[in-house]
């Protein structure tokens, strides 16, 4: 019996102990001129793991991006749908098992998941600052931090999103600010709700209320301050608890995720939807699940925006290919096609004023559709994301003070 136990322990150790550290190849890759990286990647296959819940985004990647990769670099693009939390855990397990050759070449990632991945040493880099399109078109100041966490070149920008509310213009007139929203909720019981944090969209909604009821975002930008949080958070709990009895199902339950809220909104059970993607409502109209009269609006108190990124895992089998794809994604052509509402409608992460004039014109000519707000409305109310320590504390506090109170 002892011998068996010993054998098992050895087996077990072999499974969990990490093997040799990453080779010198990776360091070389970071200093190689980009043309040589492209040459290295030519004719290979790149596996891109990304959120797969949006059919139109999947289509865009499978057709447009894949075709460009094939045409320009003779690289075969394989899209693998997976939630970010899941692939971070997959990489954690691979790292714990010492697997030096994984099967992911590029990740679509940001915020909490990026912080988790970088802290656990799951990412290859820095690589982003060596990409030609990042150097040429991206405003460096716009990508130093991701949810208050330093990026340091471990991820390359790829799109921008901003929080908007959705409503049916044939049914309601939207409120102008948060006070107006509260008054509306109380006057129309059962017709408003938000997805239950830690859902991405629901969590963004409470952050936005947090900014608005505690005097703006500036005070939080310096990083985590426990005293400040203890002083300010009760104002948020008070606001949320005051409206709770007037929410959908009397606030006894919340939609599990934003897709559930979308369904409630499209069935007319609630009067407002919400999305972290300004063009989400337009896509839903095109898809046929929202009425053609659906529109979006922002509150005067501010609308949170963030940048989403791509990153390369520590054990990516084709890092050169991952870099080529990350670079292509932030090119003017791809960003433009991504911006079109019939493709995806995701906002560009590059600084349009840095583009050649002809390209600038092409961006200005894109018709976003009637439901999507233009940058002249979104720009002035844009407020940055909160550092992720606050995000975690808000989600935990919401459970404690609103859900379980």
């Amino acid at each position, binding site marked *: 019996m002892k011998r068996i136990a010993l054998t098992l322990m050895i087996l077990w150790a072999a499974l969990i102990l990490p093997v040799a550290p990453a080779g010198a190849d990776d360091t070389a890759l970071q200093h190689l001129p980009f043309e040589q990286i492209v040459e290295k990647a030519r004719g290979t296959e790149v596996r891109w793991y990304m959120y797969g819940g949006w059919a139109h985004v999947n289509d865009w990647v499978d057709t447009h991006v894949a075709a460009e990769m094939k045409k320009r670099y003779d690289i075969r693009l394989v899209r693998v749908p997976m939630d970010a939390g899941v692939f971070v855990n997959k990489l*954690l397990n691979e790292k714990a098992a010492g697997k030096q050759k994984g099967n992911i070449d590029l990740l679509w990632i940001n915020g909490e998941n990026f912080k988790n991945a970088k802290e656990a040493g799951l990412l290859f880099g820095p690589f982003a600052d060596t990409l030609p399109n990042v150097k040429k078109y991206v405003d460096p100041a716009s990508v130093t931090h991701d949810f208050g966490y330093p990026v340091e070149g471990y991820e390359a920008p790829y799109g921008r999103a901003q929080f908007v509310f959705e409503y049916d213009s044939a049914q309601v007139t939207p409120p102008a600010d948060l006070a107006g929203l509260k008054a509306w909720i109380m006057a129309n019981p059962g017709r408003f709700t938000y997805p239950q944090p830690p859902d991405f969209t629901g969590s963004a909604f409470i952050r936005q209320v947090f900014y608005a009821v505690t005097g703006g975002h500036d005070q939080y930008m310096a990083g985590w301050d426990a005293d400040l949080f203890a002083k300010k958070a009760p104002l948020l709990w008070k606001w949320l608890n005051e409206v709770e009895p007037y929410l959908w199902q009397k606030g006894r339950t919340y939609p599990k995720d934003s897709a559930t809220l979308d369904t409630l909104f499209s069935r007319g059970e609630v009067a407002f939807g919400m999305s972290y993607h300004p063009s989400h409502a337009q896509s839903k109209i095109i898809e046929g699940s929202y009425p053609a009269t659906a529109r979006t609006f922002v509150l005067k108190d501010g609308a949170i925006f963030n940048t989403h990124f791509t990153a390369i895992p520590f054990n990516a089998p084709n890092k050169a290919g991952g870099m080529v794809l990350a670079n292509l994604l932030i090119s003017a052509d791809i960003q433009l096609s991504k911006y079109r509402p019939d493709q995806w409608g995701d906002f560009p992460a590059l600084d349009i004023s840095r583009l050649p004039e002809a390209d600038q014109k092409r961006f200005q000519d894109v018709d976003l559709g009637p439901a999507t707000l233009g940058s002249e409305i979104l720009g002035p109310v844009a407020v940055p994301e909160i550092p992720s320590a606050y995000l975690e504390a808000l989600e935990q506090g919401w459970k404690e003070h609103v859900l379980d109170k």
Partner: protein
Amino acid sequence: MSWISKPNKTTRPIRLMLGLSPLLLPYLVLFCGGAVLTACQSFGVLTPLPHAGGVLDAYTTLLRDASFFASFGFSLWVATASAFLAVAAGAFLAYRVWRLPGRLAPLSLVYKIPLILPHIAVAFLVLIFWSRSGVIASVAHSLGLIREMHEFPNILYSGWGLGMILAYTLKGAPFAMLLALALLARFDIRQIQTAAMLGASGIRIFFTIVLPRLAPALHTGFIILFLYSFGAFDIPYILSESRPGMLSIHVYNIYFKHDLARRPEAMAILTLMFAFAVVFIIAYSRAVSRLENGVRKL
């Protein structure tokens, strides 16, 4: 094992272990390995991020959190109610099916359909049929039983987990039936005929003759169904309400949607659930054997 001429007393267990190794090894490495890793991580050992606090931090956090106990209690309620209903319905239906005349027997195969359906499909069925904008509400509305759709009882959001209990019962009852029918197949129908001739009522026959015979299968069924609904994730993911939450949803949220530093907390919940399952099985079997010792065997 006739080909082993003279089994030596000391080598026999080793031989046996070797023979079983194709089964034992995956079990030990994958299942026990996973359980050990889970327990380790709950103590802050081998976590993805170095763990800063003490060994029992995750457990003290949990045990101080009233909402953890609320979730635990709620999971217990859902599991107990659904397992009991499934076993009760299963026993009764099995008995009725068994008494069916021979030519109707093939029809009873219908009961096997929910066995084939995955849990998640049953969850969707419940959602489609029982929500306030669902099929049953629509039918009741068009029959004039209710004037407005929202007069339909709010079953899915009642705060009692009725949607989940319904789904687990639908899924569990045929399983309990299957177990009960296996025992009934060997049951001598003359016992029932004798009892009926002596003037026992149908109800009395069921409770004093049939049910004791079915008991072993029903107890096993209850344990399996109880533990499954106590820990499973798929049906709660579709049908659970925000409060009180099921434990499995709580673990999922901490594991996938929160800071990695909270991994020990998720693992501590899983460890506690596992420990509870073990304690439950032992306590339940003891209680059953004590009960049975008190009853005169037929």
